[in-house]
């Protein structure tokens, strides 16, 4: 198992290298001149050209990419064109807010989405099931931005219960986390319902009921455990979407996270910041995918016997 994890971690490196090349290409091909963005309108043509030369923007593409990778491997991701702050320092300040938001919203989605999905499957074709499907449809269809604004209007403006912006306390993260969890919750609800419906029709579940097992043991002990595999995959995939969705939510709730940083960097053609932000997001998604794969091994006894038992045997020999 340890060997499997190490192998997977090593495989992240070529993935990140590939991502860096793609994003470096896209950002450099996109229209916009960083020198004009920095100096703004009103500077002279020769001043723009001097700044471009100073920033190395006149070097060939592959020379610039090679220098970037060489510096990045030493932990130097460059300085922001806009603020002249080291990019790594800026991202290190912002990343915790985004990860916090993504983790909290994923937890909310799991806590609400899973039980409702189970209930919906167990009570198929009843009013509860129809309501759950309706809720999931609404949550999937609703734009994050609109949902966030509605939450602010209700809880911050009308009821004055929760703050509408900022990051000063845990209370400031309640509305953003709810807004960011909507689409993940909808996906989890539908997926859980779907897999549960498949599992509770299996023979071993019928056998468990016939043996007199309590309904709660049948549902949670036998059915849910087997239904979890695709659900865990959906959680992992949607965590990546949560990171992306955080961009919108951070704008609305004025959270100084990675999403807001990325948007501002793209608008300002702040190339080092854009590339590094995307790279860090890619690293997080890769690590989450790895965690999902590891969880898979421990949930599915068939995989566990292959990786854990085989690993133990190898260790013994």
């Amino acid at each position: 198992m340890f060997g499997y994890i190490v192998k997977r971690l090593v495989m992240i490196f070529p993935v990140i290298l590939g991502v860096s090349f793609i994003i470096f290409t896209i950002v450099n091909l996109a229209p916009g001149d960083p020198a004009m963005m920095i100096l703004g309108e009103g500077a002279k043509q020769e001043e723009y050209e001097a700044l471009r030369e100073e920033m190395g923007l006149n070097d060939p593409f592959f020379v610039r990419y090679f220098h970037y990778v060489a510096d990045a491997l030493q932990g130097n991701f460059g300085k922001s064109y806009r603020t002249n702050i080291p990019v790594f320092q800026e991202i290190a300040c912002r990343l915790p807010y985004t990860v916090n938001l993504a983790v909290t919203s994923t937890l909310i989605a799991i806590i609400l989405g899973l039980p409702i999905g189970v209930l919906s499957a167990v009570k198929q074709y009843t009013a509860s099931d129809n309501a759950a499907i309706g809720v999931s449809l609404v949550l999937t269809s609703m734009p994050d931005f609109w949902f966030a604004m509605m939450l602010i209007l209700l809880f911050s403006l009308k009821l004055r219960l929760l703050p509408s912006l900022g990051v000063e306390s845990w209370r400031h993260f309640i509305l953003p986390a709810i807004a960011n969890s909507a689409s993940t919750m909808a996906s989890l609800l539908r997926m859980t319902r779907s897999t549960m419906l498949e599992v509770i029709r299996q023979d071993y579940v019928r056998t468990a009921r016939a043996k007199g097992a309590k309904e709660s043991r049948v549902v949670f002990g036998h059915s849910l455990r087997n239904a979890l595999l695709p659900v865990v995959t959906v959680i992992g995939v949607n965590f990546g979407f949560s990171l992306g969705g955080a961009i919108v939510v951070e704008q609305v709730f004025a959270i100084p996270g990675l999403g807001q940083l990325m948007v501002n960097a793209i608008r300002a053609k702040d190339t080092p910041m854009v590339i590094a932000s995307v790279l860090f997001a890619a690293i997080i998604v890769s690590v989450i995918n790895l965690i999902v794969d590891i969880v898979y091994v421990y949930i599915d006894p068939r995989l566990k016997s292959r990786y854990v038992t085989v690993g133990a045997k190898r260790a013994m020999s």
Partner: protein
Amino acid sequence: MVGLLSTCLGFDAVEEIFALLSVFVHYMFKEGSIVRKGICSILLVLFTLVPALGEGALLVKESAKDSLLWGVNSEASSLDPSTSKDTITHMMMYQIYDALVKEDPEDYAKLIPGLAERWEFSDDRCEVTFYLRHGVKFHNGDTMTADDVFFSLQRSLESSYSSAISGAIDHFEKVDEMAVKCVLKYPSSLILDILTNMTYGIVSKRAVEEAQAAGVDFARNPCGTGAYKMVAWKSGDALSLERFDDYYDGPAAIKNLTYKVVPDPASGAIALENGTLDFYLVVTSDYNYMKGLDHIAWVKCPGVGLYHITFNVTQGIFSDKRLRQAVAYALNRDDIVLGGAEGYAEVADCLAPTSVFGYLSDFEWYRQDLDKAKALLAEAGYPNGFDVVFSMHDDSDYMKPAEVVQDQLRKIGINITFDKMSRAAFLENVGGKRNFVASLRMVNATVRDADSVLTRRFHSKMLGGGNNYSGYSNPEVDALIEQARVVFDKEDRRAIYRKVYETLREDVPLIPLFTNEILVFFNAKLKNVYPHPVYRYAVHGMYFDK
């Protein structure tokens, strides 16, 4: 004695001393004789009076609330005057730094002494000597001298960020310990306005040199003479400032000032309404709703931006002057103001913002005349009109008036499609490479004079670089613009500008549309908020009413 103690120790310390004394006396004379009670009473009175007396003498005005939370839609790029130029950054820097000359907070058109208590022009008006105010303190405790002023001004002059406003300045010189001279390339009537700009804010020379030696970015660790000093800067979140008690004009009433980044205008408006924010700059919708709220106040003033249509006069269909004139005749600019700016703008009849010196309110631009427009189209060989692409920055401030223009030009057969792009792409493609046929944009007067816009948009020396991107070049107009800069009589300058406008009206490289109004909303309890076209709000004079 009380006053001396207060000055030496500070009012908080004096308050503490009297508190301790009163407690000491109380326990010493517990038996409660008349003499003892009398001494206690006197001490207690002093204990309460001293702080009240002290504070009344110290602060400009008392404020019911000691913290002001100000929402901005983007954070400062740099707090170093020599490496910043955007309006929002300068708004924040206005609290941290002072300039030699400043605007009267109650009437921004009036210039008053800042860090210079007076100035003298030479006879040929090519030199201005500024005599500095004595005893001005920097945030690091240093006293301002001519060394700091010369250092600040010269480094800003040499920076690329100041080139848009520094055309007239040749160099600065230190005259003596408390005087600095500005040497001009030509006599300029705009020099005092130029030096109010925060790009020429005065920094502590020692602070800059120490930052450089320590490898620390001065732009993130500012040190000026302003009414507020920086306490903390949480990137992307908030810039926290605190009252500078040694400010030369007396400490501000409000102790804490925080600029909070709120990127979304709708969220900012809600935060203002529910009391989270005390001030928000960019309320872009539902003005009438915000105006109707009792606990929200607002002020407005004309801005310094001129919204205009730009034609590429050297290539493409609009290289034919007749077609440009046809467009000018086809437009109803009153409707563009209503539809494009919700009525919060003023039609501009000259190629300058309506609020700056040099705008002539009696000058007449083309009035809508669809028959003349169609006749010009026919004369140019397009009797049925034509299709054209407008290259646009995809900001709603430009798209809204552009859509009204599109609707109006359809009536004479000109069909506009929009090529929308980001600001970065617009500056590169349109401003830099001039790959466009027509566009709608805004130009800000960086100095409140028509010269600022006329030079940038029409002088042939400003071709390229996002300035004169229409490609217009007319030696006669160049000469008139240069002549206006060196004339000091206001009527003579107006006469020169009139000639410029007449030529531009004939050639129509640009069509002026309107000057936007700056409308800002804030907590109604906040007083002494005076409108300003480029957000130079003096928080020093503000206070919260009870």
